[in-house]
């Protein structure tokens, strides 16, 4: 049976008086990796910011695990009330003046009920997935390279033990080889059982590892379907994947 972990219904939102999103209906099923692609300014980032509560929704609902309504909740309320969701912003996704260790420990902040030993275990688990972070444990995050920062951002989000994770262009501003590494890590996370929404500019690359995809145009879902279908779809190809 398909279990929806995120479902948005008629979601409208924007900044100030400027409406960005129009009646968005998307869903994410358990264990799925869904990619949202679309041209610049189509509202991809705004969509996941609205889901997590950084941008207030004007109308519509966001449901988690079919029965928790998080519409209108502030981000810290969502993460601290035990809803297993976390978000990695596109840029500025680590605390630059905090050390790698402090960044990771802050990630575990929502789990104040868990014993210290459990958090330490997860910390070690993160170092297993991202070995480079262990080498830099005492360094300030500002001194990490672009790729390392993305790894830290991912690890920080994972420290809250989420079941759902929203990623905003994790490969942005990275060299292709580093972007590949990040995509590999994302696939690894999917295999661990996480449900993932991925917003990406590198559409083909992202769709290749995804189950399904949504194409957002001017704040509306233009096309959606299986990732393979989207890659082969000529219209999508012409417009957004750079195929001629």
């Amino acid at each position: 049976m398909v279990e929806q972990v995120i479902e948005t219904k008629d979601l409208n939102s924007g900044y100030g008086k400027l409406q960005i999103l129009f009646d968005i209906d998307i869903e994410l099923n358990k264990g799925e990796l869904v990619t949202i692609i679309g041209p610049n300014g189509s509202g991809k980032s705004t969509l996941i910011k609205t889901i997590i509560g950084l941008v207030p929704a004007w109308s519509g609902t966001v449901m988690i695990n079919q029965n928790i309504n998080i519409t209108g909740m502030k981000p810290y309320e969502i993460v601290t009330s035990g809803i297993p969701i976390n978000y990695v912003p596109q840029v500025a996704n680590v605390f630059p003046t905090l050390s790698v260790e402090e960044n990771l420990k802050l990630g575990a902040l929502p789990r104040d009920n868990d014993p210290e030993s459990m958090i330490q275990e997860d910390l070690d688990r993160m170092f297993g997935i991202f070995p480079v972070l262990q080498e830099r444990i005492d360094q300030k995050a500002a001194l990490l390279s672009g790729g390392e920062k993305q790894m830290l951002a991912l690890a920080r989000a994972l420290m809250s033990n989420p079941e759902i994770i929203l990623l905003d262009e994790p490969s942005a501003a990275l060299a292709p080889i580093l972007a590949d590494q990040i995509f590999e890590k994302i696939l690894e996370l999917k295999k661990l059982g996480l449900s993932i929404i991925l917003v990406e500019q590198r559409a083909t690359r992202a769709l290749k590892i995804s189950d399904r995809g949504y194409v957002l145009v001017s704040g509306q879902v233009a096309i959606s379907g299986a990732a393979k279908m989207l890659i082969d779809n000529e219209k999508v190809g012409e417009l957004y994947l750079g195929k001629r």
Partner: protein
Amino acid sequence: MTDEITTNQTLFDRFQGQRDSNPLFYYSLILGILSLLAGLIFGMVNRIASQAFFYDIAIILLAMSIIGYTMTEHFQSLIKPGVDWFTKQYQQWKILILIAIFLIILLISYGLALITPINFLSQSYLAIILAGDLIFVSVGLTMIIRVRKFANFAHSELVIVGVYAGITFNEIMGSQGGEWYTMIFVELIVAFMGAGVVGLLSEIFVFGPLTRRNATPLSLMVASIGLGMIIRQSIQEYHGAVPRTFSPVFPNFFDNLTNIPVLNIFFQEITLLKLPGGVNLSLNRTDLWGFLIMILTIATLQYIFTNTTIGISMRATADDPELAQITGINTQRVIYFTWFISSGVTGMGALFLFKSAQIQPGSGFIQLLLIFAVVILGGFDSFKGTVVSGFIISFTMTGAIIFNSKMGERQKESELIDKMVFWSTSGDWKLVIAFAIIIVVLIFRPRGIFGLVDPKSKL
């Protein structure tokens, strides 16, 4: 940035280049220098009041130009290698380096006192104490700038609230002098709570609502000037403008502890050390307690910042409030906590900055530029920077006093304290020299000594 070094621009060209990109710096510096000249000319023709007026204007304009200067594009620091070397040594030896520096300063001043008629040792002691007081009232502003990203001009009012909280508390309790609750340790708590609550309220009722309406750091700064006036006038309404005095009182049992060797300097009111070579040094227990409590406070703050969840949350909120929210930090609560703690610490420091001195509701504002100088030179948002720049400014000012006073004439200690803590209206070169040094340092190190904030952004 490196381009600027390689091009053969004169200092004047570079200054002219600031006219459009940084009018605040450009015009306030020109007007500041003109006012300084005007002050000098009036001084020559013995128009003392006009001289005082223009000097005051000049000091304010020069301070503004320093703020402007920190916003400009700058060339690489020339003193960077030296700072890097020191940082490396410091990371290795930490506290030992600091103690060594103190000892070296004291030894040098002892040596100077032996060979000159001026008691440099005593001056160094006073400079260290003044530095401690300045740092005490400045760290709070550093915290606020770091977390809230604007320059709070009402900070000087938090200083004055600290002292008046003590005075008011004594009045309410009907003190005749000497009761248990007039003791400095009780008053410190009173000052902490008084200033802390005022700081907290200013966020709840002024800065918070403004920020939610998307106020820029500049409008928050202007609002803080207005808020400062309101606080100042409110105190004046209640207490009047008559100068008041707050004298720290110590428990009676201190008198029984004066036999303890070495540590008795903390218990007897004044300890006169007669050193070989005819150099005297008199230590005041209020000074020493102030310095000790300052160190304990900073150490506590440092501990909170690095080892507690709330402290790390504060740094995280300072770094990136949005990301902090996503991480699960209640940033609103963190900001309230920051205001309360930083204002409270400021109030505590105020008791020592104004120890046994006459104060009026307006006295705090006069100290504001000095506090800002400490914070700016320290790099706006760095604890370490605030501490180091507190010492630099204090020693510069003390040096300027020595320079200013007639060489060869030993002055009474009390006169010197008066001169140091309170600016006489004008004619006093110590601030001009202190600010000139700051300008020079900032030319070479625009982010201040340990600054993290990009001078182009923020503020």
